């Protein structure tokens, strides 16, 4: 904060920082350092643990990126630090399970080749839709009334509300569906591919592809369509966007739905890794927040890079320090980041966080 005041003195006519959701990355020294360290780490992991480790890290990096992008989008456009993101993941996992397993059972009887390939995708689409609807319900039921009541201390209040939502959803699921683990061994019963001497299951490849495609579609949507442009306008200046006739309420609902939907897709894609149970969302939520805090709050493009950085840091921790320290290392990394570059390695672009 002190730096900011000093820089104000030097340049009296400071242009307001342009906020870009999904803009070009501003690369700073800290970013380069972290990226260099990550690439170094990737090479070392490849040397010591074999290529399989690197490939696995890339696959999980795609998933963390997908989760973090949704989180960053909601934070960037609506200034809501979403703590219930993990619960969207949970909902996605459950929906995929309940859609996919009857299909799978039916398939065992009928033996249809087409359904065998398409079945999981039906699960993913159902999960995406469920996440979208969940997002719309939450936004309309909770944030819309709050926005109408007061914008005072918005960031903190919104954060606490999402904490409450997360609590309700977790315990509600526990109450209705029960605490049992519901998982599947794999989506597609085919032999794993062999690539660079690494055995890769089809599930992982598809999960990674879906992550990449989802992010690409989101990019296209935000950069090239009229609605996407409106979303970016709202993220830059809400009252300005209101003045030029953008329906703020619609944009907010849409953004929240998109964000939760991305988390649900991630939950559905990773059902073979994370079984569905009420508190399954905690770990994905933790990693999504780790990414978002690392790259800077609300920085969507940064979140994509950050997902992979975090995945490699995680792989490095498992390789060299031990799985037991998986929860401690992120905290230490975050402490260092907060000391060196408090607004994240790519810089924070959320005005609301700084204002309140």
């Amino acid at each position, binding site marked *: 904060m002190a730096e900011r005041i000093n820089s104000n003195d030097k340049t009296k006519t400071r242009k307001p920082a342009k906020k870009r959701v999904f803009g070009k990355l501003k690369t700073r020294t800290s970013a380069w350092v972290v990226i260099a360290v990550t690439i170094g780490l990737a090479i070392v992991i490849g040397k010591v643990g074999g290529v399989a480790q690197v490939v696995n890290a890339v696959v999980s990096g795609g998933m963390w990126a997908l989760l973090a992008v949704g989180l960053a989008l909601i934070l960037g456009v609506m200034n809501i630090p979403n703590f219930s993101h993990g619960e969207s993941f949970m909902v996605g996992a459950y929906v995929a399970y309940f859609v996919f397993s009857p299909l799978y059972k039916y398939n065992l009887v009928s033996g249809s080749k087409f359904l065998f390939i398409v079945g999981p995708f039906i699960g993913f689409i159902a999960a995406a839709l469920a996440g979208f609807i969940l997002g719309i319900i939450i936004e309309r039921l909770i944030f819309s009334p709050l926005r109408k009541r007061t914008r005072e201390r918005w960031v*903190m209040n919104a954060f606490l509300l999402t904490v409450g939502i997360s*609590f309700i959803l977790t315990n509600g699921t526990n109450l209705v569906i029960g605490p049992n683990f519901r998982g599947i061994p794999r989506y597609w019963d085919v032999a794993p591919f062999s690539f660079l001497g690494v055995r890769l299951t089809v599930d992982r490849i598809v999960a990674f592809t879906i992550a990449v495609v989802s992010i690409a579609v989101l990019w296209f949507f935000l950069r090239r369509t009229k609605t996407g442009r409106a979303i970016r306008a709202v993220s830059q200046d809400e009252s300005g966007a209101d003045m030029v006739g953008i329906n703020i309420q619609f944009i907010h609902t849409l953004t929240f739905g998109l964000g939760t939907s991305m988390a649900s897709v991630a939950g559905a894609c990773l059902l073979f890794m994370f079984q569905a149970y009420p508190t399954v969302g905690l770990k994905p939520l933790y990693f999504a927040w780790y990414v978002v805090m690392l790259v800077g709050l609300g920085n969507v493009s940064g979140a994509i890079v950050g997902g992979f950085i975090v995945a490699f840091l995680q792989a490095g921790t498992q390789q060299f320090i031990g799985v037991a320290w998986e929860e401690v290392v992120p905290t230490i990394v975050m402490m260092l980041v907060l000391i060196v570059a408090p607004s994240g390695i790519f810089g924070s672009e959320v005005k609301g966080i700084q204002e309140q």
Partner: protein
Amino acid sequence: MKITELAGRKRKMTGITNILQRVGFSPSGFILLVVLAVLPFIPPFSSEFILRWLIFGAFLAAQAVAFDLTAGYINVVNFGFAAILGLGAYTSAILANTSPYLIVQTGLTPWIGMFIGAIVAGFVGFILGFLTLRLRGLYAAIMAWFVGIAILGLARNLIKLTRGSLGLSPPSLLETSSNRPYFYIILTMMVAIYIICKIVTRSHYGLAFRALGQNIDAARASGINPTKYRVFNFTLSCFCAGLLGGFYAHYFVSLTPQAVMHTSKTVEVLAIAFIGGRGFLWGGILTAFPFVFFIEYLRSALPGLPGLHLVIYGVLMVLVMIYYPKGLAGFVVWAREKIKIYKEEKNGGF
């Protein structure tokens, strides 16, 4: 005195009311406290079974007070509150350990261990606050959460020190099977924490806290050093949490990482503090006792629905936050003002 003048509600205080006011009790509040203190001797409450509920209520209430000091005044939510509490509990329990299977076998008496635990918790709070409270509130909340998960991970993984997920079984505080002495210990701790917090918030520190909580830039412009006051506040809150952790360890005599430090424990305290009302301190106390009774009743009436009380917590919290942010304490204050105005009108005052 300064603060009462500034708040513009200077009152003529005499005798016992004056003393009570200075330590933060209104007459009615004090009466409620006395009722609470004699409750263990009144039949339905004197059974050991219900005494445990009362103890748990007081424990939650004390936590809510310590939590509200940061959440309600400087508007920073300590999301690692349960973990900090667990840190205090674990420190005390480890120091009291005599089992030869663990590294530390000091066998220190819990009475000293509790305070050492509190100091350790306060120190961690200080470091955490020092790193994060230079920044905006959200960073502190998320970082506290991260630190909480790290402490949970450590407690689970340093098996030589904590027995991991199996948990510790520290010695109990008193050599008695009765719950009544424990109730008075936790009640004393609750009142002490409340009085300390109240005295702090009544001094010029409290004014600074409120200013920082409302608008940090305006507060900074009027010469308040945000880091100093916020770190002080955070440290005090963490210290209280550590002390309560010590009580938890030596009362429940079983300590597992998941049961003490999990994020959902923080959320429970948060829900009680927020339903009680932010920035009043006593709101949490007012909410915690009825809540514990309600929940225990619900649990025994509907055993087939585990976790229903948690859903009710969540729903109530969300409703209060959207539609009545002042909470229960705010409602009590509002009602008191209304009654006062009504009485004055009746007496023909105006």
